[in-house]
């Protein structure tokens, strides 16, 4: 599908009225993408428990169509739930690269945002945005499941603004958005 998504905007832009078709296509594509966000079953630390609670009975993430997948190949969203330590950083980057485009990252909790209570530790990566691009930052130690839902809604808003015209989110260009090779 990559070729179609890349070439279609170029062709359609030349045709009169093509932009309207593009906008309509955008609407449907974005609707599909934001309606079915499949996160990776992957927890690092304390926040993972609140993430599990969000999938579970009272909060029920399935209502939004958020449905965890065990393998990165089938996931759209990486919920970095917990402290990223240096030993875990390179596996984390590898998992991020294994995910197919378009992929999104939510940094859940203070540790993933900036290091949190371990701000001066020799072993903690001070924020997951040092190793991969982050779409939504979620504060809290740990954030409540309601907060996680809010973060997912914010991500949905963000997905709703994507346009295939700009190739945003749908190309390998985002891959190079990771700040630097590690």
């Amino acid at each position, binding site marked *: 599908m990559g070729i179609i998504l890349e070439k279609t905007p170029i062709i359609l832009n030349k045709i009169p009225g093509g932009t309207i078709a593009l906008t309509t296509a955008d609407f449907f594509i974005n609707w599909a993408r934001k309606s079915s966000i499949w996160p990776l079953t992957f927890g690092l630390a304390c926040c993972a428990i609140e993430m599990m609670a969000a999938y579970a009975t009272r909060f029920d993430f399935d209502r939004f169509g958020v449905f965890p997948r065990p393998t990165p190949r089938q996931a759209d969203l990486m919920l970095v739930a917990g402290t990223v330590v*240096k*030993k875990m950083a390179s596996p984390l980057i590898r998992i991020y690269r294994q995910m197919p485009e378009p992929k999104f990252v939510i940094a859940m909790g203070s540790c993933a945002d900036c290091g949190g209570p371990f701000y*001066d*530790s*020799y*072993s903690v990566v001070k924020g997951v945005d040092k*190793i991969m691009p982050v779409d939504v930052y979620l504060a809290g130690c740990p954030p409540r499941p309601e907060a996680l839902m809010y973060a997912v809604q914010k991500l949905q808003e963000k997905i709703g603004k994507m346009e295939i015209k700009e190739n945003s989110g749908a190309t390998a260009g985002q891959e190079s958005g990771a700040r630097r090779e*590690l």
Partner: protein
Amino acid sequence: MTHHTVEDVFAKLQKIFPDIKESEEKIKNYPTWSVSSGSLFKICETLKKESGFEYLDMVTAVDRHGKVNSAGYLTEPNPCVYSQNPSVVPSQSPAPGAGFFEIIIILTSFSMNQKLILVSRVDRTNPEAESLYPLFKSADWQEREVFDLFGIKFTGHPNLKKILTPDFIKGHPLRKDYVHKKDKFDY
């Protein structure tokens, strides 16, 4: 033969190992014995086989080097710790070779319903101690942890390698004079 109190055990052990003595600084409410690092293994063996101390609770170490070096942390020293005590200068560090390591071992006897703490001093320049792995398997990972974080080598340990910290973190972080070198994730 079994003993009924720790004092009996102590009296008996002192006959075999004359260097064992009650520690000056007791760990609160537990019998604390200070032993030399050379006889540590033998004492543990005797305690396990003859006195029923068959359960190793904990192996850890303390670096008696002085105040912790604030260069081991990524940010400036915690103001709550230092500003309350103006006499302590954060960057003040003692002489490199000063002090010693203490190896702390906690043993439990279920028959006596008693915990026992052994403290043993290890030289800081070339820290080495005899591994308790042949006696207690639970020493396996705990000694690896002490090796990783303090750099004390346990002779006789079958698999002594880093356990907690990644390979690129050089040095032993829990030593008081540990200085953190910035690596690829610190920027």
